[in-house]
């Protein structure tokens, strides 16, 4: 159920992100990032439990940081703490991650 909600949000994020970035759609366009999978493969090592609790990195759920701060931190990272993902993730991808973070809720059960 939670994942479904994320998927809806992400779809929204894709549309909004692509519109705002005015990127032309091509046959070879990189598919949009699946944020829950991205957390399960990469982000979750430091942002534990899908970002719901603090680990090596801070808890992301209920973050008081602004969207711009989060976007910038994802793009350029922080030396010795957070890798820079600006070359791996598009602005659209990063917007989707911000949406994911804002939608995080405690897990049921």
């Amino acid at each position, binding site marked *: 159920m939670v994942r479904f909600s994320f998927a809806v949000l992400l779809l929204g994020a894709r549309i909004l992100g692509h519109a705002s970035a005015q990127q032309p759609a091509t046959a070879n366009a990189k598919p949009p990032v699946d944020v829950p999978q991205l957390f399960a493969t*990469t982000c979750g090592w430091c942002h*534990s*439990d899908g970002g719901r609790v603090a*680990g090596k990195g801070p808890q992301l759920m209920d973050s008081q940081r602004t969207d711009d701060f989060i976007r910038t931190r994802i793009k350029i990272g922080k030396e010795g703490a957070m*890798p820079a993902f600006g070359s791996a993730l598009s602005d659209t991808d990063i917007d989707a991650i911000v949406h994911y973070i804002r939608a995080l809720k405690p897990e049921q059960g």
Partner: protein
Amino acid sequence: MRNKQDVALGLMLAVGAVVAAVPGHAQPVDTGRIAAGSPNDWLTYRGAYNGWNYSGLDQINASTVKDLSVAWLHVPGRSTRGLQSVPLVADGVLYYTGSYSRVFALNGATGQVIWSYFPELDDMLVARQTHSPYNRGAALGQGKVFVGTVDGRLIALDMKTGKVAWDTKLQDSQKLTVGFTGAPLYAKGTVVIGSQGGEWPGRGPIYGVDAETGKVKWTFLTVAPTDEEKKSWGNDSWRTGGGGGWMPGTYDPGTNTLYWGTANPAPLYDWSGADWKTSGARPGDNLYTSSVIGLDIDTGKLKFYHQELPHDAWDFDSAVGEFVTIDRDGQKYIVHPNKSGFIFVYDSNLKVKNVYPIVDAINFVKTINPQTGELVGRRDFAAGKQAAPLCPAISGGVSWNSGSYNPKTGMYYKIGNEWCITLDVVKTTPVTEPAAQLNIGANFKLVPPPEGQIYGHLDARDPITGAKKWEVRYPEPPMASVLSTAGNLVFVPDSRGILHAYSADTGGELWNHSDGLGHQGGIMSYAVNGKQYIAVVAGFGGMVSDDYAPTFGEPYKSMPRDDGILVVYALK
């Protein structure tokens, strides 16, 4: 041919032993000298090829240790994620590395800088890396100091001047985002270094490089080196990779064998359930991940291996862990810890002779058969949230910090970690093209074992049988290596920053001192002009220790993770 080699080696060992008895008389650091393991020096990562992490010096002993105090300090600067290396000493000169592969040569008696070398790294690449920019040490040999870099290079420096002798690009780190953090190993004209690689879609190469020229002699792929091993990776899953020999192994001059441990396959956590041989992310055994391998050092050809964890579904590398070589009753044993918290005992052909656990918090298997090494009652996950936590945690029942074998007590001193993680296994799309992505395959968080609290312990055990003689507990697992000495001492640098000295016989604490920063690197001993020193690096931060602040609070909450210091002790 072998007989001739043995005779030659015997002569080299004899010469090495004599030379080492003359402090300050510089002789080439070669295979014979490293194998002999002179007590005045510390010529390779774990002291000598025997992997003992042991000093034969006894000036600092159970009676005199009360007078141990700081002799000198050195601050390397820019210690992002702390200091994680083991200093080396040859002929009174101490060599050590810091973050970003900074290398220093210091006067071992005074700390005076003889030379320093700061390589220019690819900063943009380093900024993209997750397991970076720490460095765990150097190697010595043929008048050179060898160090790896996180941007995929192996560099040789002149021992006397620090000038670059050669600088070889081994790894396409731009593509893979991984390079080298572990120390190289020098033996028989070859410098061996293993790539990072448990979490990335590479094939975890181990490189053998000519020490004189820097040219690559051989490359061994730890993931499916031939079509035969590809059969152990169903659905071409070898492309998702893993492996990587990210910590140094060792060398046996008697058999010309290089022993090395390899990392886990990717993704770390599979969703196959019990049908892991035919389904899931990477069906099959996944050779040669989570294995110990024996290679011919001249050719890099595989001689034999043992896969400690076939189809590792828990991220319990064999890349961690020393190879402790012990002769007992005419039988040669090799003792090797696995990240799972089990200790494997082998003969010199890596045939299993015994297996025993040193931690209680283990539930990824019911046990491991001590006669065969077979995993019994393994726990393979289907996708979804797991009802019970996985023990030990992703950081391991043992980590990459070395234990110590003391031939005088016959005991093996080793740190065990008691912790677990909750686990939600996620069925992910195969990651075959490296980007900035790791390939974990789950969400998790660190939790205490079901039976109680997180803690760490130093065990004194018989290395072959595993029988425990004594134990010392710590509220947080120590992440630094252990040193034992002929002075009947065991030194444990703990995570809070306290260096402890215990009686090797009883485990009774005899002395301690604060180094001001958590320890997560090496400790060693050497002598200059008849005076014994203990050198330890302090400085916290990294893939394991970054969990300490949120888990334990103070002193980790306020402990810097971008600082470091080399502390050298001697008797007052």
